[in-house]
């Protein structure tokens, strides 16, 4: 629950007494799209704005005078591996232990969240500006040409050595693959050639920030420009609170390979106009325009009424990158209003319901099969290749099965092409149950189609009993499938079945399934001890 939500809905936080100090701890769930609430600073700020104790601070970037600002030069080599970079400076910042921890923590959370694909999208580096003279260069070099002392290490390593060094690190080893096999690794260094960082792996020890750091140089590099900009904006917005000139950020000039330049951070404010009726209509409430404007302002979306009072102009701050459409604004209004304050109304939509014919048939069949004494099973759609091939005496290529990429275990290698393995495994797992065991399942199998994996619905009845019990299901005067369906049986040689005791089932001129006594090999492979017979038919032709 985010802070605002904490207030509106019932308190979802848990109170926990902690050891000596009786501080109450709250566990707060932050939704995945609210980067501005990932650190304590942002949460508190949001809460205070909500409670109308403060106004949302205005984040400003200060463009230094010509020649005084920092520069980040991007070279052409980065294009292939990590094309985008943005940077900013936090001037005259004061860190305390809590602030420092929070700063590091936010970077980690952002890495996990928005940067995703474990830092592939964006990697953040923060440095003590006073230790590194600019201008800075962001380029890509061969691993052997990169040498520096990584963060918290005691000696220098080349890039290749660093790869080896962190191969066993529980945290960093997941990122190595992002650059490992490339001819050149990304690297940022200062005007003295000292390495600031080798994104996305690790920063240099030389420029690491400490409690004493007064000026911070922040760089974000990555493969997604939009995300890189958002991440930078968030970090500086959150921690500029601790700068001497609160909520100001010193801009950095980024120079591209083609000579073009750009100033970062963007810290852009965007304006949107929304009609109050829209908000009221979408939510089912009726608030006045000014009341709506107030609600939105409390959600960090500063709003005021314009036009003839029939329009609300909303300013979306750079910390609210999650607001991309009017519906996001509508949701924020709802949150501020309080979801549980909205009146419930039954929609007047009049419709006649229809069942899907296949499901309707399935339900009828289930009832009749249970009445005939069969017990329903529900088995997995995913299984191993052996289950549908080897154990049934077939080759996997003949099954036309759909294969899963990178299955974690053998249990997830393929999607089932027959219901038989599932039922046989169920019997094997319930060996101790009294006989006879009569099971059935009506469910879907997946077969590769000309176009793509397709599914068809199957009925499988399986019994640890003589064959004729199953044959009755087809022969009875009002056979399970009803109507005047003529089933005919023809001898069939199937690898899963006992020779001479298997038949192919035909109805309406097409083959719809098989019936027979299972081959002893099948019985053994599924770890069964008693003879079994099975009937499997496709029910789709009967819909």
């Amino acid at each position, binding site marked *: 629950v985010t802070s605002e*939500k904490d207030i509106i*809905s*019932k308190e*979802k936080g848990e109170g926990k007494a902690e050891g000596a100090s009786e501080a109450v701890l709250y566990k707060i769930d932050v*939704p*995945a*799209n609210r980067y501005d609430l990932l650190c304590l600073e942002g949460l508190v700020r949001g809460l205070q704005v909500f409670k109308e104790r403060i106004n949302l601070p205005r984040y400003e970037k200060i463009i230094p005078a010509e020649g005084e600002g920092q520069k980040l030069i991007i070279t052409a080599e980065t294009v292939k591996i990590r094309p985008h970079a943005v940077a900013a400076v936090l001037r005259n910042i004061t860190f305390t232990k809590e602030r420092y921890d929070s700063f590091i923590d936010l970077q980690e959370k952002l890495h996990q969240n928005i940067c*995703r*694909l474990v830092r592939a999208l964006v990697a953040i580096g923060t440095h003590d500006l006073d230790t590194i003279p600019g201008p800075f260069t962001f380029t890509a070099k061969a691993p052997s040409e990169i040498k520096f002392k990584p963060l918290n290490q005691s000696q220098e390593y080349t890039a290749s050595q660093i790869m080896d060094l962190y191969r066993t690190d529980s945290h960093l080893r997941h990122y190595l693959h992002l650059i490992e096999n490339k001819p050149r690794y990304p690297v940022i260094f200062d005007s003295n050639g000292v390495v600031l960082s080798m994104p996305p792996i690790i920063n240099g020890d030389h420029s690491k920030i400490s409690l004493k750091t007064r000026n911070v140089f922040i760089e974000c590099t990555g493969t997604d420009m*939009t*995300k890189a900009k958002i991440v930078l904006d968030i970090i500086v917005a959150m921690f500029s609170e601790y700068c001497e000139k609160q909520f100001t950020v010193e801009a950095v000039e980024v120079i591209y390979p083609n000579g073009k330049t750009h100033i970062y951070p963007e810290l852009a404010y*965007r304006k949107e106009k929304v009609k109050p009726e829209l908000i009221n209509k*979408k*939510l*089912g*409430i009726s608030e006045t325009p000014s009341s709506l404007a107030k609600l939105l302002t409390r959600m960090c979306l500063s709003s005021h009424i314009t036009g003839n009072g029939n329009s609300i102009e909303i300013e979306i701050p750079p910390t609210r990158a999650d607001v*991309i*459409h*009017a*519906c996001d604004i*509508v*949701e924020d209004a709802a949150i501020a209003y309080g*979801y*549980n304050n909205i009146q*419930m*109304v039954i*929609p007047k*939509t*009049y*419709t006649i*319901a*229809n069942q899907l014919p*296949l499901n309707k048939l399935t339900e009828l069949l*289930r009832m009749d099969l249970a*009445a005939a*004494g*069969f*017990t*329903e099973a*529900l088995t*997995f*759609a*995913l299984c191993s290749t052996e289950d549908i091939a080897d154990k049934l005496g077939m080759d996997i290529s003949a099954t036309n099965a*759909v294969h*899963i*990429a*990178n*299955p974690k275990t053998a249990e*997830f290698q393929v999607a089932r092409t027959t219901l038989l393995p599932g039922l046989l495994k*169920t019997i094997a*797992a*319930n060996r101790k*149950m009294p006989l006879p065991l009569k099971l059935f399942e009506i469910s*879907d199998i997946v077969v*590769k189609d000309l*176009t*793509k*994996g*397709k*599914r068809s619905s199957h009925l499988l009845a399986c019994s640890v009993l003589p064959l004729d019990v199953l044959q009755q299901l087809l022969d009875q005067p009002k056979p399970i499938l009803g109507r005047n369906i003529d089933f005919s049986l023809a001898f069939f040689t199937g690898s899963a079945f006992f020779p001479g005791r298997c038949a192919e089932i035909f109805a309406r001129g097409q083959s719809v399934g098989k019936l027979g006594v299972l081959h002893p090999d099948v019985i053994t492979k599924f770890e069964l001890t008693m003879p079994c017979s099975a009937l499997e038919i496709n029910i789709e032709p009967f819909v």
Partner: protein
Amino acid sequence: MSPSVAELLLQRLERTPPGPEGGLCSLEAATALGLDHQTLVGAVKSLQALGEVIEAETRATTRWELSAEGEEVLRDGSPEVRLFHSVPSEGLPQSDAMKLPGAQVGFSKAMANKWLRLDKGAPGGPRIFRAVGAVQDVVQNSLRQVQDGNGDSLSERERTDLKRRKLLLEVGSWRKLPFKAYNFSALGLPPTCGHLHPLLKVRSQLRQIFLEMGFTEMPTDNFVESSFWNFDALFQPQQHPARDQHDTFFLQDPAEAPELPASYMARVKKVHSQGGYGSQGYKYEWKVEEARKNLLRTHTTSASARALYHLARQGKFTPVKYFSIDRVFRNESLDATHLAEFHQVEGVVADRGLTLGHLMGILQQFFTKLGISKLRFKPAYNPYTEPSMEIFSYHEGLKKWVEVGNSGVFRPELLLPMGLPESVSVIAWGLSLERPTMIKYGINNIRELVGHRVNLQMVYDNPLCRLDA
């Protein structure tokens, strides 16, 4: 309340030793209870109908009774003896003798017994004379035996004789022998029958609930789906965490979907990468190869997307209510309550002018039918809905609010590229099937419910699925 006949019988039975050696004779019991035998038989039959309470055997015995004529003979003597005694020492003219009652039968019998002599040449017509000094009335004696209940002591021939003379009646009587009552409190044998799977029983009930509310079932007959329909069409960006291998089962073969609707896809591409329809978009480079990737669907919302697209293409918009309950696949970490496959329940309403209040209203109706009527809503985040709500209900047992579902209003970036009119809102909600089933039936490990390691005894014993009782 006075005890019924059945109760009285049972009480008597209690006192007899169990099994076929013991028991009561129904005739005796009837007499002892002062009841008509037929009434007692009726009680026996109704007790038998209850099942394993008593056992009763019918023992047929034949009795003999005297006919009305037989009674007469018993009283007055057999006709032949009477005739004999009517003949004085000097004899009796036959014509006179024949006038005596019972003489017809008596004469032929007496003659056969050689008790009388007929002198045909006697003066004054044929004359009957006694042939022996005294006779025994055997017939009367026999009849007396029968009357006394000793019918068995007569020989077969004697009885046949008496029967022929219509002095004896054979009466079949049916005795009932109720045995010791069974123990009520012992468990009965379960009848052999089939069983439906608990999870699918819940599914049937939920289908029923949706149909009762006017929802039409959507086709969901594809476990395999393209990333396009599963993610992109739902405005879920291509870099979203759910789209990576850790959460989704991607397919090796077939790896790509061959056909995707071209113009629709172009609009989807635009709204992701550049925005449009009033949206800023996500502003990233949208790749068609990513959209083509085949996977096992992670939610049935992809089926809803297809259904809505189909709806948009039909021309004139008509309001709809759709539902689906089907299997979905997630590649997440597994534990006691999570499997790679589970069932998702989804409901969708598309109409003009729907509000968040309407969503809450229909949720209230839906969950009430599930037996849950105390609901609260909490803001949430889904890539494809805005506003989004998590639905909570108060669990009396646990004494806390638990999440029962997720819901929201579909984003315009999802609906408008399909071609749906701007005034149309689509509200939707979903929940898993497994969770309420496990709560309802008190199952703690999902593997006991779903899959081949199911506890079949649990399936056998599983009661009716009554959700709102």
